[in-house]
């Protein structure tokens, strides 16, 4: 009950940390393998994510990104491999197991109820109640929703309109905000900006920054490579079921990233690194100061 009333307390308890001063990894996936019949979907993938770190997970279609994330979210059970969460070895057989540890996944298809209002969607399944749990505490729900949206800098002036009437960016923001209300330690976003207008992409990218500043680790799957350099600390490139490259987002050029994704070794990997890298590093310093 009281936990539902302050849904994002957990996220606040986690001290804001940047990737630089992290000592314990939030999650380490070690040598994850998964085979579907004749297809090797994952051929021994090792991935680590620090607290508050934003990882961009990229790769061509069928590279294994989604499978890897489903393993992490508990929707797919790997054939072999080890997952260590906050220093403890864990194994998931259902998404619920992963969620209880604080791993939330926001799916591509938004997963909101169009006919229910913003506040209702934010607290769907965990509504604040009164009268001994019999009735919804609607007023409390709208107050919490407002507080929650403000804390995440989400600009939705009204919490009592159905989400069906919102723009794509606002809907995506509500979906992410909902995942954050669970107080996650790790947030997996699958193509959050795929169907959005340019201005709306900004909303979502800012939201990712806000969330990670609160100490939540974020794994971002996207095909919009330009977004990655805006928000990510590291870029992990998958290729045919393996982790092909683990790059520092500040020291990597778009050309280098593309060549890794298509596994094209002929392109000079050093070209253009310096320019993009410097800008990103400066930006990070100012952000760190702001925090």
């Amino acid at each position, binding site marked *: 009950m009281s936990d539902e009333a302050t849904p994002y307390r957990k996220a606040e308890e986690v001290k804001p940390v940047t990737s630089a001063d992290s000592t314990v990894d939030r999650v380490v996936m070690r040598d994850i393998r998964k085979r579907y019949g004749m297809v090797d979907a994952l051929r021994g993938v090792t991935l680590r994510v620090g607290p508050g770190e934003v990882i961009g997970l990229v790769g061509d279609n069928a590279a294994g990104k989604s499978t890897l994330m489903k393993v992490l979210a508990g929707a797919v059970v790997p054939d072999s491999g080890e997952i260590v969460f906050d220093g403890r070895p864990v194994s998931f057989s259902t998404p619920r197991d992963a969620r209880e540890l604080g791993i939330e996944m926001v799916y591509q298809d938004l997963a909101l109820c169009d006919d229910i209002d913003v506040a209702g969607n934010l607290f769907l399944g965990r509504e604040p109640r009164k009268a001994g749990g019999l009735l919804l505490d609607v007023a409390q729900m709208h107050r919490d929703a407002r507080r929650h949206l403000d804390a995440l800098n989400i600009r939705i002036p009204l919490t009592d309109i159905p989400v*069906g009437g919102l723009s794509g960016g606002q809907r995506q923001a509500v979906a992410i905000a909902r995942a954050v209300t669970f107080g996650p330690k790790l947030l997996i976003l699958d193509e959050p900006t795929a169907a959005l207008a340019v201005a709306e992409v900004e909303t979502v990218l800012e939201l990712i920054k806000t969330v990670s500043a609160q100490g939540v680790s974020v794994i971002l799957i996207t095909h919009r490579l330009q977004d990655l350099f805006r928000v990510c600390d590291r870029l992990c490139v998958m290729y045919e079921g393996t982790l092909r490259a683990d790059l520092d987002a500040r020291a990597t050029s778009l050309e280098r990233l593309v060549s890794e994704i298509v596994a094209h070794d002929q392109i000079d990997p050093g070209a253009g690194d310096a320019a993009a890298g410097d800008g990103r590093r400066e930006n990070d310093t100012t952000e760190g100061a702001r925090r």
Partner: protein
Amino acid sequence: MTTSERTTTSERGGGAAVSERVVTTRSARANAHIGKHAQTIAIGVVLVVLLIFFAFSADRFATTGNILNLLRQISPTLIVAIAMTFVISTSGIDLSVGSTVALSGSLLAIVLQHGWDPTLALVAILALGALIGFVNGWFSSYQNIPPFIVTLAMLSIMRGTALRATEGYSTPIDGELWIVQLGQGRVAGIPVPVILAVVIAAVGWLTLTRTPFGRYVIGLGSNGESLRRTGVNTRKVGLAVYVLTGLAAALAGVLIATRLSSGSSNAGSGFELEVITAVVLGGTSLFGGRGSMLGTILGALTLGVIANGLVLLHVSPFYVQIVQGAILLLAIFANSKVWARFGAVRK
């Protein structure tokens, strides 16, 4: 991109140009709210127009006796329509309610004739209704068979069972038993079925709009997968709504049988159409996700007023069915084509 630009963007959370684009406009809000209530207002207006029309054209329409009679006539429909609002809000349908009315009325009369205690008989009949709903719900919600087919099959099974149990004859109910008061009694001049209907309508409204269960019913009809991912047991919710219609139909069967002092296997024919018309007329979407309890109440009253008024105008009662079917078709047309223009509706 320079450092200063970046910092500003971060702090403002998107920048001025962005916020202008994403802010929800007042008109969007107005549309959403009008969309929510427009149908209820529309059906309210239709009801008032009909009331005025019949009050001036039919001599005995606007008398206390006739109004109470009208309300008593519509009570069983209203009770089942309240439950049906939940079912239709989940994007389901229950066609078996008319047959359940016949079966419960018939069985009530039969077991009373066998000397059962009326209270026990009432409890048993209501339990049977809930069981019928449970079977409907288990097949549709747990086995994912379209509820249209499940309840259509159940319609046939229950009607057949009622016919088999009564051999087609009406079974009289002894007027001395207290249970007859359910259909015929009055409290402070108001018929008992009307009081029951009002209480059930109030509870139904509270449940749909103010409880987690009501929220999940709407969520299930709107985007069941989304609701399931939040950890709600959607199958249980999907089953529960059919238990509600089964229970309500059994109660309606009891009210009708005790009103007539007789249980008939032919009772409640076309009842499901009347109930569904009342619900759809009130603005509840057949595609799920939108349910209006107030609308359902107004819808049921409108149907009652039309049936009652036409009879008082000496129009052939056979026209009532024609009018009802036409209203259903028009209401669905309005739901999906006219009201869909308001922002809130996307389906």
